[in-house]
């Protein structure tokens, strides 16, 4: 679109400022994790990697990290299976309630997280389920399904069915066609969905707070219970960086998997 020079320059500046606004706080937390001083004053008091060494040695952080990884992997597996199944059903078949199903899948993201949290909390209590890893996974999977679903549906929509039909015409049965044709076509979408689900689960706190109980820990929960203790401040900073890295790297990888040249070029 042709725009006067002034507007173009103004837009460029606005874009730069917005990006700075988004990324400066994130950069700052990384910087603080190397802060030699124990308080978060500015300017920082020298650089050190001591807190990282201490964090790795800290049993609380280690347990929380393991808990987070277990929860994220569990939730990702459940989301991967359920999200893919729903995506195939919605994209490939027409049945009663199809639109409703697509809506229900998105609901956990559209409703405030606290609602999902408290609803699951009272359900677990009523069913007499022990709060722990299992309940965390159930909670996380509920909102992770949608990211897998979205990725797979988008890929199925873009993939022509002619290859599958050709495969069937050549005598391959449903399973063989899936293994040899359909699965390779959606493989990267599955991987991207899984990575996003992992990231979403790894830094989740709102629902986790309601589904974790006292026995189990995740890294965000550990941060949430320790951020007010002045002694633990440097360790909280390091834990925050752990969460950041382990959620941002999967998202980056997922974005690399799903951006194909056709999607970024102007059409």
């Amino acid at each position, binding site marked *: 679109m042709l725009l006067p020079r002034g507007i173009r320059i*103004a837009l460029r500046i606005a874009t730069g400022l*917005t990006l700075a606004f988004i990324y400066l706080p994130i950069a700052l937390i990384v910087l603080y994790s190397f802060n030699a001083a124990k308080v978060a004053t500015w300017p920082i008091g020298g650089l050190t990697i001591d807190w990282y060494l201490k964090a790795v040695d800290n049993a609380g952080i280690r347990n929380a990290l393991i808990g987070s990884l277990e929860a994220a992997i569990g939730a990702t597996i459940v989301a991967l299976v359920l999200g893919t199944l729903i995506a195939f059903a919605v994209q490939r078949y027409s049945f009663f309630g199809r639109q409703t199903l697509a809506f229900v899948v998105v609901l956990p993201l559209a409703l405030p*997280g606290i609602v999902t949290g408290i609803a699951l909390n009272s359900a677990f209590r009523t069913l007499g389920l022990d709060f722990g890893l299992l309940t965390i996974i159930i909670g996380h999977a509920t909102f992770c399904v949608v990211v897998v679903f979205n990725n797979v549906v988008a890929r199925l929509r873009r993939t022509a069915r002619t290859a599958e039909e050709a495969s069937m015409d050549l005598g391959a049965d449903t399973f063989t066609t899936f293994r040899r044709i359909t699965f390779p076509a959606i493989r990267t979408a599955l991987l991207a969905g899984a990575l996003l689900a992992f990231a979403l689960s790894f830094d989740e706190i709102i629902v986790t707070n309601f589904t974790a109980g006292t026995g189990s820990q995740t890294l965000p929960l550990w941060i949430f219970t320790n951020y007010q203790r002045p002694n633990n401040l440097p360790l909280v900073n390091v834990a925050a960086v752990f969460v950041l890295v382990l959620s941002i790297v999967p998202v980056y990888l997922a974005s690399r998997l799903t951006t194909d040249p056709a999607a970024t070029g102007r059409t």
Partner: protein
Amino acid sequence: MADSPMTPRAPATDRLRAIAAALYRHPRAQIGLLLAAPLGWLVVAYLGSLALFLITSFWQVDSFSGALITQPTLKNYVEVATTEVYRTIAARTLLMATLVTLTTILIAFPIAFYMARVASARTRGILVVSILLPLWSGYLVKVYAWRLILSQGGVLNSVLAPLGLSGPGYSDVAVWLVESYLWLPYMIIPIYAGLERIPTSVLEASSDLGGRSWITIRRVILPLALPAVLAGSIFTFSLTLGDYITPTLVSNTRFIGNVVYDFVGVAGNQPLAAAFAMVPVAIMLVYLLIARRLGAFEAL
């Protein structure tokens, strides 16, 4: 599907093939198999919980023994509706969600416009990824980062001190700032997608008919971008309504989320928590209905 007699197969393969053939003849069975697990999960684990949550809001906690009384009553709703504090908190939360939504629209529009209509394809790709990364990750970490930034001797106060100013500290303004920061990417992406969908021919037609850039933006682009803005606002609105972490970390003020959280945790009063949590749910349902009428769902 004709069996090919050429290659001899193991019985297991034959059985698989028989199943495949049977499935092929019965599409309903295919759907059934596909949907059994997900429906079981969504209906039992999720919708079931939501239903129970709704039912719980009509129950009561015996103030003496702490046991649940399952006799249906409207007492919780009456308490939420008539207690001054709860009304104030609900109104405050609604106001905050509105302010945050308006703020994110204002900040998101220029960058989304730049991405969709000015940037080269390469730059656009990089920008989209730079917006998506923080959208998906590090929610708690970002709130915590702002807690450090806004603290007494923190970055903001140190930077503003030479100018004779000081930051908002931990306050309502801080909540507004941090919520706007958190949900900004959720607004940028839909607006960007909406602006990108506007056909170039429409814009050319506007300028051919004499519309200057500004007129084209106001009369053509803004109306066409409205559904996208609404789509983004569903997220910013809903996420602000339900957030209890941000107010806890950067203010001393209580919002709906904080009260609900305390009802569940500290007070152990599930029914009252459920009744109060119905406020954001009701607001969101009304909001979703309006948004759907205005075409926001096509822009999601």
